[in-house]
């Protein structure tokens, strides 16, 4: 039985803690993380490392596109899609 994970909640907590020094008011699920500069190129590396470590997935080179990391909604969609692919394999 697969367990449904709310990825965006976990990632949101990481972003608030790691990038915003606890200031959660700066971010909602649809905040454009890259456009707003909340996550820069180093931030993407940090975020990918966090995702890989915490969710035990590997983010491939092809998946490192803005579409997958543009907001918490996008990250949730991306990780759910990865999870579904893994489950169906």
């Amino acid at each position: 039985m697969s367990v449904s994970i709310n990825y965006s909640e976990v990632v949101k907590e990481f972003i608030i803690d790691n990038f915003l020094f606890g200031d959660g008011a700066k971010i909602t699920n649809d905040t454009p993380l890259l456009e707003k500069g909340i996550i820069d190129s180093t931030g993407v590396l940090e975020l990918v490392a966090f995702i890989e470590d915490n969710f035990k997935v590997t983010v491939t080179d092809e998946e490192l596109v803005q579409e997958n990391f543009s907001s918490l909604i996008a990250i949730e969609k991306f990780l759910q899609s990865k999870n579904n692919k893994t489950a169906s394999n």
Partner: protein
Amino acid sequence: MNFTMDSIYLDAFAETARLAAALKDTVAFKLKKRGAVVGVSGGIDSSIVLALCAKTFGPEKVLAIMMPERDSSPESKELATVLCEKFKVPYILEDITDAVNGFGCYARRDEAVKRVFPEYDPKTYKMKIVLKDDKEAKGKLNLFYLTIIAPDGTVKSQRLPLAEYLQIVAASNFKQRSRTNMLYYHAEAKNYAVIGTGNKNEHEQGFFVKYGDGGADVKPIAHLFKTQVYQLAEFLGVPEDIRKRTPTTDTYSAEQTQEEFFYKMPFEVMDRIWDGWEKGVPSDVIAKVLNIPQAQVEVVINDVRQKIQTTEYLRQEPFSLG
């Protein structure tokens, strides 16, 4: 506006005259210095700045400093020497290998490289960092890859994990910061100004080290596209060997062009796209003039915009909170 392949070019005579007047005014009256110190690498940017300074102040009021270290290409020193002799500018050679070694630059960098590739031996292998080239990929994030080259020529490349990326860059930046220290030593010893050599591509996209090569008293070419730098280099008589040389970072032991390290595409294309975008030319018109797909133009604009935005902190002075 009528956007063409030639829109990027300047009136070289007028721009050189304007820059010389502004440089003289800045150094004499704002900085109150008696001459100019320029770090020369044998590259096109430092060459045009040296030529401009020699023209502005007279070669006897300019001091060129060459600062190779053990990973530098021998060609850099040779070309810098040719340049200084051509413009009759006195020069000093300062090998910074011992200085950066004292900071642990090589050891710290190599330690991080070995964590990614345990077989890496700095005595026999070469290494470099590159941005993966993917011109057609819309929205590709800019992430760095580590490449090592074995003694038998075998090449291995891997996306850099966060800690190793940060450590390699931080260690390598000792080189640029040590050079700036050396430039200011000579500038202060002669009461001269340090003249920066960064162009618009470097300055605005953040391709420089804060308080390293980004440190200077005046930056006379920070508004010029690389394409315009080449144009002025020809006008000022910079030797052809320098003008024909592929721009390199000259930072890592393996040969590495600026294109593969950072810009991802030829300057003659990127500069024209960027120039058109700044002038408000629609992307479909830029694409038509350059004869490339509109999607590629948009990828480049997006990449430039992203780099400008994410490197803003590099161009900022320390914040005062008073």
